């Protein structure tokens, strides 16, 4: 039986709903996209997804559960700060000051932990991209078709933000092919990677050549990101626990409408940051106590460097085809 393609649509109807995408779409990996994605994820994580989950919505899925992971991170950070700060208001003045100092350092530690953990992933992905042409963080928008809640429910489309290589077993290879209707070469992205990896140019099937290598690099860089980001996060905590921050805490204010005070606070933050970074690196006392900061920083840097080296090390030699018989992941 022949079914007319006009009658079947696997796409969202753009006219019906003001949707940004109507099919799975590869996105550019730039600051604007990342920011938009993060805002979208964050907003959903604290509104739509918990509401769906707590009511046991039949469309709730694993992506939503994972995205909701930001919720305990934020509430956990706030609670951690409160644990040290909140009771302080009941203490005697001196004890209150001492407690607030620890609390403020902890709050800063939580903040730096998050920043360093997130930012440090680029220490792996940027050099890996530069050396191999593979953007391990490439995002795409996924269009999801949900089950209608009832017969009148027409709002059944939702957008999820994923990464092309978030699954190494099922990467979205299809999204990396060029759109020939737009004059793009079908394999142009794979061609670029093949060239970077030294496999040559004008290959007949560059996609088939590079896919196993991409997988290997994605797995290795994922390992490097997972391990090194936690060491960088630890450096963030170490930085926050330095004494010079106490000067900042004395003048700290977030009241931006009080221009002079706010400016002073910002300036103090800058100075304290520089002084704390120096103190973290130089250390005080003797022996391990003095060099602990250097060692931690060294471990973090080393984990990133080794991570990058390992990620790109096997890139230019022939890789076992994981699809062949006896390959690691699949056996046919």
């Amino acid at each position, binding site marked *: 039986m022949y079914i007319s393609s006009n009658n079947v649509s696997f796409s969202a109807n753009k006219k019906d709903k003001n949707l940004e995408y109507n099919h799975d779409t590869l996105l550019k990996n730039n600051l604007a996209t990342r920011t938009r994605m993060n805002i979208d994820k964050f907003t959903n994580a604290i509104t739509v997804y918990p509401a769906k989950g707590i009511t046991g919505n039949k469309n709730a899925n694993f992506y939503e559960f994972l995205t909701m992971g930001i919720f305990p991170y934020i509430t956990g950070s706030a609670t951690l700060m409160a644990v040290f700060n909140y009771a302080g208001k009941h203490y005697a003045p001196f004890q209150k000051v001492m407690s607030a100092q620890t609390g403020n350092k902890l709050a800063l530690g939580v903040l730096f932990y998050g920043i360093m953990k997130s930012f440090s992933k680029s220490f792996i992905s940027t050099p890996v991209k530069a050396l191999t042409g593979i953007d391990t963080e490439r995002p795409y928008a996924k269009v999801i078709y949900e089950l209608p809640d009832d017969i009148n429910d027409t709002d059944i489309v939702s957008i999820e933000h994923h990464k092309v290589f978030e699954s190494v077993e099922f990467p979205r290879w299809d999204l990396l092919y060029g759109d020939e209707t737009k004059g793009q070469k079908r394999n142009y992205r794979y061609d670029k990677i093949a060239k970077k990896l030294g496999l040559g140019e004008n290959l007949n099937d560059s996609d088939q050549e590079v896919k196993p290598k991409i997988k290997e690099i994605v797995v290795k860089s994922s390992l490097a990101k997972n391990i090194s*980001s936690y060491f960088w996060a630890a450096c963030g905590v170490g930085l926050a626990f330095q004494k010079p921050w106490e000067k900042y805490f004395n003048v700290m204010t977030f009241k931006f409408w009080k221009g002079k005070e706010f400016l002073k606070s910002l300036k103090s933050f800058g100075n304290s940051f520089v002084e704390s970074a120096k103190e973290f690196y130089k250390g005080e006392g003797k022996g391990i106590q003095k060099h602990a900061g250097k060692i931690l920083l060294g471990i973090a840097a080393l984990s990133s460097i080794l991570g990058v080296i390992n990620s790109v090390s096997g890139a230019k030699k022939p890789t076992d085809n994981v699809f062949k018989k006896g390959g690691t992941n699949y056996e046919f």
Partner: protein
Amino acid sequence: MSSNLIQNYIASKPQQNPIKQDMPDFNIQHELDNRTFIKPLTGSGELLSGNIFSSPKQFSDSFVYKMKALKHAAKGKANDHELGKINDIGLVAGGLAIATYLFTKRTTNMTKGMEFIGLGSFLASMALWPVLAIQLPAYLIHGVNVKKKYKDSFGRVKPFYQDPQFIPWDLYSDKEINKIGDRLGVPKNIPNRRDFIQEKMKKIAVQNNTLWMLTAGFATPIMSALICNMSEPYLLKHIDEKQNKKADKILSNLEDYSKKYKDNAVTKDIETVIKNHSGAPINKEIQDLVFEAFTRDMDAVSAESFRKDLTKLLSDGKYSVNEESAKEIITNLKTQFAGKDFSKEFLEAAIPSEEEIINLLNENELLGKSLKPVEFVKVSNAVVNKIAIKVHLYNAAHVDDAENMQYIRKLILNNKSEEHPIIKALLKRQSSVLNEDLAQKLKNLAGIFDNFRAKNFALDEYALIKTGAAPETVIANYWNKVSNDFLKTLGVKQKELEKVRFDENLMGELLRDKIEKIVSDEKSYNRVMTSLAESIASINKKLKPSDITSHMLSDNVNKTAYETAVDSIFENFATQLRESGFERTARAIAGNGEDAFGTYRAIQKAFAEERILGVKSSFYRLLNTLDFYHRVANDPNGLKSINGATIAREVKEELIELCKIITLSGHSSDFATKFYMKRNPHPNLEDMSPIEITAGKVKNKYFGKATQTTDIPNDKYFYQNAMNYMFGGEMSPETKAILDKFMIGDEVAKYRQLVFKNIGGEKYFYKPRHRVANTNASSNIKFLLTGISPQELFFKSGQQLFNTKKWLSIFGKFGAGLLGITVLAQFFFGHMKVPKGGKNA
């Protein structure tokens, strides 16, 4: 119309005229018999059984799996599941990195240990909260294990409800699903019962997983902090016992333990000096280098004595005269004459050249000789005579500008040795050299010093661990524990602390009320005094009096083990120093026999002894305060120790009030100024009626009612009565019995005597006759005996206790509330409309 990939494909596909062919008939039996198509693999997954807590085997399997995942990932061959597990490894590794870094920043064992407990408790809380607050209640309420795990066909352990859109329901048999359905109350007669039960289980799981995400952020830090809070006393106890045992071991095995400190630093430094200056004349630089090497850890007084001994060793008392001396003499003369209004021409004419000086020394047979300081005059005279000749010649040629010879002589000769231009130059060159013999002596001496230093460090460590004024020493831990126990023993409530915690005087009033109430009832007094005495006496278990003690508080004149060790080490060192000719140093460090007053040895002993005296005095003072209040409550009129029967009631009231204040809050200054108190200068001396006591408090008839009051400096009896009343007389028999029971009766009695004599004997210029003894104790001893007042002690520990309880109250309530809401919410989960044919489940 929107387009998609399939449409694009269809649209872009080259159009071909389809060639119509008849499809062959499809015979299923034929296909099955010949197996011509591919069948899906048979699933081999399984549900994991077991209770909600991970078994050790599961834990170890999980660990092994993670390690394998790490290996696979490093080779680029890991799968998604394995990569997910690597995040767990990173989290723990990062956490350990943070804990280790902060560990190095902490200064005490307790705070260092707490860093790792903090990490452990955080990770444990992350794991425990979903088990205790989500999984367990859900199972008890619904009979559904929302964190059920299964092993997939590849042997990967995964949460059963991880992705609600892909739940491997086929792993549950109908029987199992129906059993859960029964527990869920799903009617048995509904159509598609299995599907309905599955949907209900899924709904419960999704809701619980969301609840987990919503609550974990609040719960984990609070659980972690509560775990830390609960662990802290146990860790402290463990560290305290370990520290105490370590200290005992140091003392009993001092010789061996000191090897840890044997760094041979002095020997190494001396060997460097010898290596760099072997055979060189001993000059000031070498002397300083040797001095610094030996006195690196020495106090300034002993070091000064050492310098004198060292100078004697390094010098043979003679100084070399050579060509360098000639150069130096000229330089010094030029410096001496500079700025004295001499013309350049005169200076050139008057100051001899290097050659002239050398010739001069040669002529006088002084060049190359070694001279004693008394012989320096030969050089000095020769040079001055030479200058005189040259000045004479200059004056003859410059009659108008002639210089005064007498003035020039004075300019050179009227100087002390260290400023004399000629002698100064000669003193620079000792004739002794750093020869083999001297080098050997220095090496031997360095060995003696290194041995002593190592043993001395070991003694320091012992004294510090036991009695140091630092956090987490044995005595500091004892202090903290006993202080906290007091508040509990006295029954001070959190609400009471909340009102008085910012004001020491308010705390004093609260304390006074508590004590007066306790002493009014014999039973409660015995309970409280027993508890306090037992707590205070525990110090003698930690600091055994035979090992280390304060002799002032005990009648024991025998040396403690610590003192024996100190004497032995210091006397041995002194003997060796004397044998090496370092008599002054030996005396400064160890004294002479038993006469060690003011020496390093005495300081080594006094440090520990005084710390013990200070701490014990503070606690014994508290016991005395309680006993005093008890005596007032039980015998207000007898005032046995001061023959109170002859004192007028108004004065008695004043006296009791003063003593109550002083015992509770008196500071060193109050004792020193002989208790300033505003009293009625004209009391009613006729009224000898007895004092009335109600519930431990004096019912004052006069006190506080006089309109004009003043301190009365000429009433020495009032002061003497007060001191007698507080410290001089006997303690109550009840108190004595309790203190004796815990073997501290004698020490407390001795303490009271010491205060009575030393503080009571103190002379105050304004009230010279206000004394009960004629002793002249040092201010140090008076300070230690006064100790900390009970009021101040309670103020500090009260604030600490309040803060701890307040914190626990805030976050304990929050944690309990969160747990309550989390559990309660689960009763509303899984509600679904039952299909026709059944009731709502």
